[in-house]
């Protein structure tokens, strides 16, 4: 059986007394697009720097396609490309020179695809890096990563600074990469981006992976949002099994339901409901549920 594109076992990183990443066990399969979520300081970038071999784990190990990230960095880097959220490039080089340099260093450059990406991302490659806006510098490192068609794309806030049109272009590129069998590990704060792109999502909190699964799995575990409107009085829903967060507002009521919705529907029908709207939670709501309210993971 082929080694998975990405696997970690008990991966831990401490900075002094602070535990930045705590025994992370993670596996990403070939062709998967996996989202990696967490608030600032949760350990997302630390995870990525450990995967890239930029810092040393305090405990545990990480592998990329079976190669140890710490001891075989060159082998792992042949198979991956990385995009950071902050594009610190050489200011005196032009965009074209930067892409040529990074393409030569990585190897496997597809020049035709590079030119296509330059066009799709609407980048002026004759400009010097110091004259680029933040968004344009970000385009350079995105193109540099995509143009070598790596087996694994490791993306850390990759669309930072991009306008909505370019963000759309980026999403198309990721879809194409997945269709070609490439694997994508995406750390992002943009929930709509993760929701649109990812097959599975992991949520990190205080350096610990507290949730990992497909969106459907995560939604199944979470509450359904229900809004109802009545001709007459709003019924008392507080005692209905599985119902919580009831908010009455005139002739309307909002609540959340876990488990079977049948008891709630019966009460609403009996009360003469005129409008009923139910909605699965968005990724943003799932994410906030992990961090909201009492401050404990849900």
């Amino acid at each position: 059986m082929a080694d998975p594109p990405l696997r970690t076992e008990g991966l831990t990183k401490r900075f002094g007394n602070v535990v930045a990443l705590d025994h992370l066990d993670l596996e990403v399969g070939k062709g998967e697009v996996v989202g990696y979520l967490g608030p600032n300081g949760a350990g997302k970038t630390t995870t990525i720097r450990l995967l890239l071999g930029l810092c040393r784990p305090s405990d545990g190990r990480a592998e990329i396609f079976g190669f140890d990230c710490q001891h075989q960095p060159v082998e792992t880097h042949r198979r991956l490309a990385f995009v950071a959220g902050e594009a610190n490039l050489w200011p005196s080089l032009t965009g074209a020179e930067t892409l040529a340099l990074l393409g030569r260093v990585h190897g496997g450059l597809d020049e035709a695809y590079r030119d296509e990406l330059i066009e799709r991302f609407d980048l002026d490659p004759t400009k010097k890096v110091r004259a680029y806006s933040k968004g344009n510098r970000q385009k350079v490192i995105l193109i540099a990563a995509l143009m070598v068609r790596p087996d694994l794309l490791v993306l850390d806030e990759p669309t930072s600074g991009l306008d909505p049109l370019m963000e759309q272009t980026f999403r198309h590129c990721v879809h194409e990469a997945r269709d070609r069998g490439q694997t994508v590990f995406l750390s992002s704060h943009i929930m709509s981006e993760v929701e649109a792109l990812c097959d599975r999502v992991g949520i990190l909190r205080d350096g610990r992976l507290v949730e990992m699964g497909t969106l459907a799995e995560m939604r199944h575990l979470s509450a359904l949002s229900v809004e109802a409107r009545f001709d007459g009085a709003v019924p008392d829903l507080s005692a209905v099994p599985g119902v919580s967060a009831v908010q009455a507002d005139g002739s309307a009521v909002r609540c959340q339901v876990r488990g079977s919705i049948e008891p709630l529907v019966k009460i609403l029908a009996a009360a003469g409901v005129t409008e009923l709207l139910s909605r699965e939670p968005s990724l943003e709501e799932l994410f906030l549920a992990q961090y909201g309210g009492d401050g404990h993971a849900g």
Partner: protein
Amino acid sequence: MQANLGIRARITAPVRAGGSPATVVAAFSRRKAVRSGILWGYIFGVAIASSEISYVKLYKTAAQRSALAATFGTSKATSALFGPATQLQTVSGFTAFKISMALMILGAIWGLLTSTRLLRGEEDAGRWDLLLCGQTTRRGATAQVIASLGAGLVALWAVTAIIAVASGLDSSVGIGVGPSLYFSLAMVATAAMFLAVGAVTSQLAATRRQAASFAATFLGASYGVRLIADAGVGLHGLVWASPLGWVEEVQPLTSPQPLALLPIAAFTAVLAVVAVRFAGARDAGASIVADRDHGEAHLKLLYGPSGLAIRSMRATVIGWWVAIGLSAFLYGLIAKSAGATVTGSVKGVLSKLGSTGTGADAVLGACFLIEAILIGFIAAGQVTAARTEESEGMLDHFVVRPVSRSGWLGGRLIVALVVLVPSGVAAGVFGWLGAATEHTGLSFTSLLGAGINLVPPAIVILGIGVLTFGLRPRATSIVTYAVLGWSLLIVIVGGFGTVSHWVLDTSVFHHMASAPGMPANWTANGIMTAVGVTAALVGVLAFKRRDLQGR
């Protein structure tokens, strides 16, 4: 309800309120400038005190002092290198002669590095835009930084003066408070002027490196003009064409000429005003000297990290080579006439500098010490460039691709050696050209050997720098330049006075034979090269095993 994001935060220091929002830039810069001024003031003060005390111990009798004055006072070589030698029979005159030029150059380097760091460096890092978002303007912010540089200058002068006054009050030295304060003021005058020069070049240039290069070129030209003026070839009037010459004309401790402070003050003030006006006349992030935003792709050297390193530093390195070649040529030109004055105790002093030959070869042996120092600066620059690539995040682009850390750093080391060796060769070849022009009679091979002899101390500096880079990356710059500065200080002080051999041994230049004044010591050179390479290799190993670190 506000979500608890579970982020662990620890407040380690209270945030102090106070200060006007309109002067926040000055407060931000002042701390850095003053801290640096205090550190360098300590170095300046120790150098002055050490010079005064060593003279008193070395030349105890009036006869010894008169002999020293008689010989040095007529030497064109030492005059060209260190400035005119007057009143050498006194502690004051000897100290002014011995230490002035070194402190003037060190002060200028401190000034240009500090101002370009706090002005163009902040702009390069993107922090300048944040500061400009406050209650200030481009001109206002620049003026505030210049004011804080002034505070740094005052700190430099104050610490220098405190140590100089304390040393002068020693009964055996006998220099009064007033003369010590005046001498200290003269010693920081070049720092003041080059703070202003750096402030202007920060407006002219598009990057900090470029700004520092512009200012360093101006310093080199100033030194060259002063050298010609003091070389005894009938061009002494040229001394007024060089800022270093103005400081020389202040004549502290010998025959004070306070009026000579006027051009220094005027030059500094005018440049400060020009810098502020330029800052208002350009966009933030732009430069007065037009910088092309677009360009054709030149891919020849962009095959990897080493090629990029060569491309990035080639202009700076060529500048260094030109400076080394030109100065070596000048030394060669004056060697014959200056060598004719080498007799008696001058010979003794040159001997203490390590140059035991006679005539032109002895002069060139002493002069080549300055070339060794320049090559040491090139070595230190190579290491700090590597550290900057890491701290600015550019290194990440290589090491997340199939480039090993040892491959990257090893490549940088090879590039550094490739830069250092021709630097020594340039010194030898151009020194020979200058000497041959004057029919000095020195052979090409002896001067080529003398040039290559300059490289091993630089390799030690390079090795210590790489070792620091591997173990304590954030200390790379300060340790590397401290080794260079210390070595320079010790070799100058040691050359003129009594210094314990234990202290002398800590200077990398002390282990270098002053060829062609004496035969190059290839055994010592081999040991220095081995020490440098070993330190560098340990640094590479340590770098492989540590986390990459930002600023």
